[in-house]
């Protein structure tokens, strides 16, 4: 039986599709993205409007039931999804950018620059970010999702900086960087055209983790009352639910969906990251 070797055009795509973790993760994430976009058009109500009887369990009329004040939980839920993505992308993105810049400069320049940046990273790494976020959040009376995303972005970057620094150090030692230097390329150009493309796959994975982390941080902040002062977010929903005794009254439909959504979304992001890691790094593939 002469087995014809399969013509494998792009090894990466071949593996990416076979990897069930990647498929599952992306599927769940897209589901929530879709829900965030389509959701608000599905319900006639406004998140804060009093539209029905109070504390009604989920029924045909109100898919996720109503709150203590008769607001439709499903409407609040779908409207609350959008800021979760906003803070996730902005906060996660900002943290990735800052982490990459600091890690990259430390790794590429080396010497005392590396020393200083590294110490700074270790310091911010150890500081309990909640203290920082509290002061900044409390200091600004009026808080928007954007501000919250910036806060989270500015405090979540240290571990990314360390990872990117290690990656840069290993790439910098590669000989094609030397070859570029003796081809007369300026350092900035070397960084952009030679080193950065190699790190792209790595940065995508780092961003996904930061995205998940940012969502969790945002929900925590909203929950202890430091979230945005206007608008609705899943964290805020849970805070209000707890504040108004949804727990003792057993109004599970008020606090279960928001938390569950965050857990599923962030879990899916982590699993996507694992899938990508397996696709890029053959060692984990056989497992």
């Amino acid at each position, binding site marked *: 039986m002469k087995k014809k070797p399969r013509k494998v055009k792009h090894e990466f795509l071949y593996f990416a599709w076979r990897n069930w973790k990647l498929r599952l993760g992306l599927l769940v994430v897209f589901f929530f993205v879709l829900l965030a976009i389509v959701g608000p058009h599905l319900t006639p109500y406004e998140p804060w409007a009093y539209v029905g009887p109070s504390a009604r369990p989920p029924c045909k009329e109100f898919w996720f039931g109503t709150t203590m004040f008769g607001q439709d939980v499903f409407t609040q839920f779908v409207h609350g999804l959008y800021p979760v993505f906003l803070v996730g992308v902005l906060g996660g993105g900002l943290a990735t950018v800052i982490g990459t810049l600091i890690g990259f400069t430390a790794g590429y320049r080396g010497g005392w620059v590396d*020393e200083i940046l590294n110490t700074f990273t270790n310091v911010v790494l150890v500081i309990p970010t909640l203290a920082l976020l509290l002061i900044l959040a409390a200091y600004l009376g009026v808080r928007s999702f954007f501000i919250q995303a910036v806060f989270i972005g500015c405090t979540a970057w240290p571990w990314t900086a360390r990872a990117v620094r290690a990656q840069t150090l290993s790439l910098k030692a*590669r*000989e*094609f960087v*030397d*070859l*570029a*230097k*003796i*081809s*007369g*390329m300026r350092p900035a150009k070397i960084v952009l055209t*030679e080193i950065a*493309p*190699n790190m792209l796959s790595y940065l995508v994975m780092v961003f996904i983790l930061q995205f998940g982390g940012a969502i969790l941080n945002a929900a925590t902040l909203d929950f202890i009352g430091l979230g945005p002062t206007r608008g609705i977010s899943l964290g805020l929903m849970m805070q209000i639910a707890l504040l108004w005794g949804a727990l003792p009254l057993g109004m599970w439909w008020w606090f279960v969906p928001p938390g569950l959504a965050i857990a599923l979304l962030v879990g899916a992001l982590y699993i996507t990251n694992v899938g990508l890691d397996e696709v890029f790094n053959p060692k984990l593939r056989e497992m």
Partner: protein
Amino acid sequence: MIELEHVTKIYRLGTFGRRALRAVDDVSFRVAQGRVVSLIGESGSGKTTIGKMILRLIPLTSGRILFEGNDISALSGRALKDYYRKVQGVFQDPFSSYNPIFKADRIFRILKTEFFPTVGPQQWDKRIREVLSTVGLVPEEVLGKYPHQLSGGQLQRFLIARALLLDIQFLVADEIISMLDASTRIDVLNLLAELRNNRGLSILFITHDLSLAHYLSDEAIILYRGSIMESGDIEKVFQRPLHPYTQILLSSVPRLDQKWEETEIRLKVQEGKRTAGCPYYDRCYLAEKGKICADLKPQLVEAEEQHFVACHRFREIPKEVKHAAGQTRGTSLA
């Protein structure tokens, strides 16, 4: 062509750079026009560091490197680019010299944008085909391929072709054949030899393999822990090795025409801390007796015409050891 004057390189280690590693220690030599000089040393001897310093990839700690008389560390911008037009390098690991996510011939495109922006596409394509045939590659076989689709030998020749596009005068070949298989290795060496003969290219051939060095070069420099032990015309150095280290090297190389001599190799553990005195003191069988070896670092002295050695006691080396090491028996196999 290229001249090194008292070149030293000290690496700072540890957090605040307290520990210093003296990688290259007061090295001076010259590579004349159209000559192949091989820089021979084991790992950690500083040979690659010297290669990188000539290519301006790492700064010197002290001393000067002159190209056609002027100091290369002073060059910058335009002047540095002109320097790279004349001086190029090829590195050890062919697979690490190419950015994996681009096609292999991208290294030509980089040269075009950096050095020949005004040259027309057809003319540039013709030049590429020219240099590819000079290095013995069939353009259709190698152009448009990714690095992992080419063999080590092909990739190395690609790098040499790249250097030839710049019609260079000086090439630093840093262990370029150590990753290649024996059968393809020799063709790359023949290519370098032809470039020297036809184009008067001078080459600094960095290697740890004595037989390859002997095959290709006119002069040899033996390096050990950053200092030159012995240098000079390759025939003289290999026939009548004067420095104990060179003798040990020559007697240790596995050869096809001669069994290993029974000279005992004392595998002393290499202590790193000796700073004063001769770098080879710890492993040298001669050094036990003399006191001078421990305190004073020997300078290169001309033992005979075109043959230098850095050892206080090279005249006292017993007859039979010198004979055994340098002896070459029989001619090469047909």
